[in-house]
């Protein structure tokens, strides 16, 4: 499994890429493998302010449904429109074309996020 060193991670198996005030969020390679074939990403918080740890959407796999949690507080700016027709991108390219949302951060303190090494230790990979 692949866990890029330049990304930050949460214990809820999301990854975060912070560029200035904007963060891109998706789920990890581990998460997509555990979920299996993903069929629908349901995100109805676009335009809303969502607090860290709150649910910003849901990911539906063939057999399972799982909530998505905000890694940092912010406003959901954009949802990856490609996922509507091609949810399998999350399985195929979780850190690239399978990204889920872009957030405008209201909280810049990312100290609570995990490094790639710490995340790997968490999942025992």
């Amino acid at each position, binding site marked *: 499994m692949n866990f890029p060193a330049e990304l930050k991670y949460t*214990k*809820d*198996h*999301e990854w975060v890429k912070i560029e200035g005030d904007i963060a891109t969020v998706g*789920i990890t390679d581990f*998460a997509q493998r*555990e*979920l*299996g*074939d993903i*069929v*629908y990403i*349901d995100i109805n918080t676009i335009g809303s302010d969502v607090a860290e740890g709150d649910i910003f959407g*849901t990911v*539906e796999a*063939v*057999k*399972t*449904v*799982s*909530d998505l*949690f905000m890694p940092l507080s912010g406003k959901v700016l954009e949802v990856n429109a490609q996922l509507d027709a091609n949810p*399998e991108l999350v*399985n195929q390219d979780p850190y690239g074309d399978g990204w889920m949302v872009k957030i405008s951060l209201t909280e810049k303190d990312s100290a609570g996020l995990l490094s790639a090494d710490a995340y790997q230790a968490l*999942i025992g990979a």
Partner: protein
Amino acid sequence: MFMRQFVTKSLDVFLLISHLIITQRKFMKNTALTDKHIALGAKMVPFAGYNMPVQYAGINIEHETVRNAVGVFDVSHMGEFILKGEGALALIQQVSANDAAKLFDGKIQYAYLPNKEGGIVDDLLVYRIDEKTYMLVVNASNIQKDWDWIQSFNTQGVDMKDISDRTSLLAVQGPLAAKALQSLTSIDLAAMEYYTFTKGVFAGVENVLISATGYTGAGGFEIYFDHQHSEKIWDAIFEAGAAYGIKPIGLGARDTLRLEMGFCLYGNDINDQTSPLEAGLGWVTSFNKPFTNSEALALQKQNGVANKLVGFEMVERGIPRHDYEICDADGNTIGKVTSGTQSPSLQKAIGLGYVDKAFSKIDTEIFIKIRDNKIKAKVVKLPFIKKS
């Protein structure tokens, strides 16, 4: 008849469950082929006390393999009982709602065991080996319950044997199944009629029972044999089927395949509390003979049922799941989802659920409560896809 879908609230809970599964696995039974599955990279999960492969390459691709070519499921966890003796047929007639007197040697019947309270002990297949010998194939999770239940009616000394632990079962399913397996046996597989079986030599092993049945609607065979031959037969099937693209298939795809056919899964769609008539099992209920609870069921049939198990597809976006509420346009509860998934063949979300009879007609608009939203669906005809 198979897997229970699990709905987790967060990926964290999912991870916790994974750890519990690993702990639990130490106390679980393996099939004779568990090492093969692990070597093939299967994701293993506990199911009915067994360590079973839920998927190998992925549910969607495995599903397509079975619909379009051929795939192999290890379903050795299923239970098999042999009933032998003068009173075997009478015992089956007492516990099964279907009419086993219609069977002939080599014929199979789908049936269920009604309980005394209006529910279902289990659904099963009844095989007539000869006039005095039958094999019952039951769900893994119900082996002990079914055994005790049938024994409680065995007053005439029918010889009952539970051969589950020494019997392996491989389901080879898909439109290319007969071609893929034909080189392994002299039995003319393509000529076998649906719901018949025969015993013979298969992959050099004697006394293999080949059954033209399955739980996928894709055609194919279920092959029963003594578990000591498991690796030999598994390897022979993959070698013979290689030219046809044969692949191992997990319980995940087994569930999506059966759901597309509208086949009931015990524990999801039917259970100790569900009425067989509400579940649409009237076609395997034969009132021309007495059986357990037949009088009450006959009365229920006469009076009409209050609810019906229906198939539905989502009109708006959302995936129905077991235990989600079904409501009408005003938000009044009218029933409950019992199974649901994204159909890999239809690329639509589909489900089964019980609804108030007034909402059971084809094309009726219903709503599924998904995360507090009312998502539009409509009742459709079963099966969701045509049998190939």
